[in-house]
């Protein structure tokens, strides 16, 4: 008789079939008997290392838990997809000392547009600072000039009065001098006239 097939070995070993003819062959055939003994040893070895089920507190699993978890997973995916799409389109969040801002650029030119936008923003701020400085400087200069002009006007008025006084003084003195000289000339002419008459 032919030797047993693998399937027949397993059927006999596991008690799946009750076949006297196969069992008779097994007893008579040394080779098949030896193979069956190896398989029986295999069962012994396998059972010897069978993991013993420990006491386990089974976790609570429920439809509601899974639904919430799925919802969170979906939300996570949606958020991730949104970030991916927006970043692909060029929208991005930026955080700096002024707070959080959104930057946007046309598809495919995100980096260039962001850089250009940044440069333009800096240029605008620079112009603004220059303008503010210029306004401050002009105001200060104007104030200085106003002060100088005011001081000058005050001084001029004061000098004008002083000068007028001095001129008046001079004119008075001059008039006195003229009168004195005229009187001296008249006196001299009178003396000369007297002397000529006498001669």
């Amino acid at each position, binding site marked *: 008789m032919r030797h047993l097939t693998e399937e027949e*070995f397993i059927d006999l070993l596991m008690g799946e079939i009750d076949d006297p003819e196969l069992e008779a062959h097994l007893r008579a055939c040394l080779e098949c008997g030896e193979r069956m003994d190896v398989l029986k040893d295999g069962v012994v070895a396998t059972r010897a290392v069978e993991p013993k089920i420990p006491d386990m507190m*089974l976790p609570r699993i429920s439809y509601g838990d899974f639904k919430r978890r799925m919802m969170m997973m979906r939300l996570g995916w949606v958020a991730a997809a949104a970030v991916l799409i927006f970043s692909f389109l060029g929208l991005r969040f930026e955080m700096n000392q002024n707070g959080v801002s959104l930057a946007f650029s046309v598809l495919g030119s995100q980096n260039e547009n962001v850089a250009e936008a940044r440069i333009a923003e800096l240029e605008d701020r620079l112009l603004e600072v220059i303008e503010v400085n210029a306004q401050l400087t002009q105001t200060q200069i104007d104030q200085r000039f106003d002060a100088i002009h005011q001081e000058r006007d005050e001084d001029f008025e004061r000098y004008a009065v002083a000068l007028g006084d001095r001129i008046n003084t001079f004119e008075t003195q001059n008039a006195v001098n003229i009168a004195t000289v005229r009187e001296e000339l008249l006196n001299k002419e009178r003396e000369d006239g007297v002397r000529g008459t006498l001669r």
Partner: protein
Amino acid sequence: MEQMLDTELVDLARRGESRAFDVLIQRYQTKVTHLVYRYVDDRDTALDLVQDIFLKIFRNLVGFKGESKFSSWMFRIAVNDCIDHRRRLKVRKEQSLDRIQEFGFDVVDEHEETNIEGRILAAETKRELKAALEDLPAKQKAVVVMKIYQDMTFDEISEIVGDPVSTVKSRLYKALKSMGSELRRKSFLEGGKV
């Protein structure tokens, strides 16, 4: 609802009836946990995997067409998850083994060391047999777990793994032959029957 058939509960669960799904979980959680534990031989890993398995069942329940029994479909997901886990673990073990050997340390499986009871076999023999069981091809080990440990029928196993009964029996034959040969080799080296 506890008295309803699996098919009725599955129909209700697919329509969003949460209680029906909860009943299915209650009905099978212990069986699935035991199957997974016997495959991975680690409590925490088993509990984590069972969570993943039921989440997969939850997510794929809508696509379950009833071509096989619900329990077979569920156990198929469980077995496939165990096989995937084992593959990932094997890759990690090989990587860590490479690293350990690179630095010249001995490899000692602490987990195996602590679980040895030595009631039937000597500690060393048991450790080697465990290693032999781990070394079986993933599908052979799955058949061993389902048939020898879980005492499932060949028809059930066949439906779960999606292969013919003859293939399942052939896998079991090869697995038992490997384990028997390992036991005999060990007995021969120790000079007597274990």
